[in-house]
C-alpha cells in the first residue's frame, strides 16, 4: 500500500512514517504544497494524508486545485489537521469530496484504522 503524506512538520512526518511502515505501508513524504500537488497528480497513491495549515501553498489550496480539476473522486484525500473537525471549512471539504478526517493529535490506532480503509 502506498500512502502520500503532505505535511511541513518534520517530527510529525517521522512519527507517522514509523507508525505506518510497521504496517507494511510505503510512505512518501512531501513537505511543500506545490510539490505535494504535483505528486498527487503524477502518481497513484492509495490514500493521501493532507495537512491543511502549511505556509505558502497550503492544504486548502491543494484541495481547491484538485476540486477545480475534478480529481477528488479519483484521489483518496484524507484531511490531516489540528483544526476543529466541525470547522466550516473542514465540513465543506468533507461534503465536496474529502474521504475522511484525521484530527491532530491523532492516536496511532485511529491513524492505522483510517489508512487501512483504503487498502486495495
Amino acid at each position, binding site marked *: 500500500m502506498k500512502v502520500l503524506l503532505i505535511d511541513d*512538520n518534520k*517530527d510529525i512526518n517521522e512519527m507517522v512514517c514509523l*507508525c505506518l511502515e510497521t504496517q507494511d505501508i510505503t510512505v512518501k513524504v512531501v513537505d511543500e504544497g506545490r510539490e505535494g500537488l504535483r505528486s498527487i497528480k503524477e502518481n497513484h497513491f492509495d490514500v493521501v494524508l493532507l495537512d491543511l495549515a502549511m505556509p505558502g501553498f497550503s492544504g486548502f489550496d491543494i484541495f481547491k486545485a484538485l476540486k477545480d480539476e475534478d480529481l477528488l473522486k479519483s484521489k483518496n484525500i484524507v484531511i490531516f489537521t489540528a483544526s476543529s473537525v466541525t470547522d466550516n471549512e473542514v465540513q465543506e471539504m468533507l461534503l465536496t469530496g474529502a474521504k475522511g478526517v484525521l484530527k*491532530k*493529535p491523532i492516536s*496511532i490506532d485511529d491513524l492505522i484504522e483510517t489508512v487501512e480503509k483504503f487498502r486495495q
Partner: protein
Amino acid sequence: MIYSRNSGSEKTEVSHGPENTTKTVLEFLSNARSALDICADSSWPSVAMGVDVYRNALRDVSVRGVKLRVVTEITKDNLSYCKEVRKVGELRHLDGVKGNFGVSEKEYTASATLEEATLLQQVIYSNVKEIVEQQQYLFEGFWNRAIPAETKIKELEEGIILGDTEVIQVPLKIQELFIQLVKSAKEEILLILPTINAFYREERLGIIRLLKEATLERNIDVRALTPINEVIEQKVWSMMALAVDQGKNLDIRPVHMTSAGVTVTTVTILVIDRKVSLVIEKIDDSKEDFIDATGSATYSNSKPTVLSYISIFESLWQQTELYEHVKESNEKLEKANKYLLATERAKEEFISMISHELKTPIVPLKGYAQMLLRPKFMGAVNEKQKKAISSMLRNIEKLQTLVDDVMDVYKLDLGKIKFSKSYTDIGNLINQTIAELRPLTFAKQIDLSAEMIANVQVHCDPDRIEQVLSNLIKNSIDFVPDKGGGKITVRVEKDNTNNLTLTVEDNGIGIKPEKTDKLFQKFYQIDTGATRRHGGTGLGLVICRGIVDAHGGKIWVDKTHKNGTAIKFTLPERQ
C-alpha cells in the same frame, strides 16, 4: 395794509399781500437769535422748502446756529419737503396739526391757510411779551405730544401701519411685509420654514439672500429651521461656511418633520428682534410662487404672542440639538461597536491560532508514546520504561483535553459552538458513553451502570451531550473511593411534560454544600489540593453548563443526595 395797535415798542399787526407778508416773515426769521419753533399743518413744508425765499431764509437760520424746531403733520405728499426741513432743524410729527405759527425768543408770527408752494397771503405778527410767551407755551405742548419724524417717515416709506395683532389677507402685502421685516431687523432673526417647497419659494423671493446679507453685513444673529434635501443642504452649508469664516452668526438647521407637530408644518414663522412675529399660512404647497402658495398671515408685536412663537422656535431648535447629539452618540457607538467586533474577531483568531499551535507538538508526543508502549513499532521496553512512558502518555492526553476544553469554553462564551441537533435515543447514547469510559473504571473497580427508560428520543446534539455525560462520569470516577466499593449510576427520568432529567450520581467524597453554588463557574475547583490530585482542570463543568444551557436545560447539584454527589441536568424535549 397794515393794522396795528401799539403800546410802546410792542406791537401786534397783520400784514396783507405777498410783498408785506414776505417782509414780515423774513424779518421774523432773521431776528431769531437762539431758538425758533414752528408749528404748522401739512401744507407748510412745501411752502417753507418749496418757495426759494423762505427756503433760503430757513437755511440761513440754521447756518446762524439757531435751534429750529418744527412740528407738523408729515404725509406722503409732503414727505420730500419734510426731509429737506430735517436738514435745517429738528422735525417732529403730530397727527392733525391745524394752524400755523412760529415763535422765537421774542416774536411770534402766524398765518392762515397755506396753499402749496405759494407765498403767504396774510400774516399776523406780534412781539407782545404775553402773547409770545403764550405761544411758546402752546408750542411746547405740541412738541411734547409729537413723535420723532423718523418714526413717521419710516412708517410712510415702508408703507404699513400696524396695531398689536393684525391678520393680513392680501398675499402681495404679506410678501412685502415679509421682506420689509427681514430688512428691518436689527439684532436677531428667527425663521421656521415648513416644507422644502417653502424654502424654494422663499429663496426665489430673495429671503434667503436677505438672511445672508443680514448676517454678513449687519451682524445680525440669524437662526433658521428648514426641511432639507441634498440641494438645500449644499446651499445652507456654503452660506454657513461663509458666515463662520467671517465670524458671523448664521445657523440653519434641518428640521425633521417627524418631530414637528402638524400645525408647524403648514406655516412659516418669522420672529424679528424678539419683538415682532409674522406667521404665514400656506394654502397650496405645490405652487412655485410665494403669492400663489400663500393664504393669510398674522402679524403681531404683542409680547405674549411673540413670546409664544419664540418658544415654539426654541423648542424645535432644542430638538435639533438633541438630534445632533443623538446622531453623534450613535456614530460613536457604531465606531465602538466596529472596534469591539474587530477585537472579538482578533481574539477569536488568536485563540484559534494558539489552540492549533498547541495541538501540533502533541502529535509526535502522543504518537511516539503510544508506539513505545507497543513492542512491534520500536521494540520492547522494560517495566520501568513502560511505567515512565505510560505516565507521559497520560499527561499528554490531559494536555490534549485541556487544549480542547479551552477552545470549547471560549467558543461557548461567544455562543459560537454549532450544535447539530437531531432526534437521539438517549438510552443508546448513555450506553455508548458508559462503554467508552468503562476501561477507566477498572483500576478502582468501580460499578458503573445506567437506570433508564428505554426508547426515549430527545432532540439534541448527541456528541455534545455525550461530552457532558463523559465529563460528569469522569469526575465521579475521580471522587469515588480508591479501593473498590465505588458506584456510579446514570439515571434518566421523564416528567409529564416530556422533559428529560439525567442524573449522574456517585457514592464518593461528595461536595460541601457551601461550595455547590460556584461549581459551574470557570476555573473553580472544589478543593484545589484534592482536585489537583485528581487532575481536574476546572473547565469541564463550565463546558457542561454551556452545552446544557444551549439546549435550553439546567444543570445543578442535587443537594438532597447524601453520601456522595449527584449532578442533574434537564433536556427539554423541544428547544
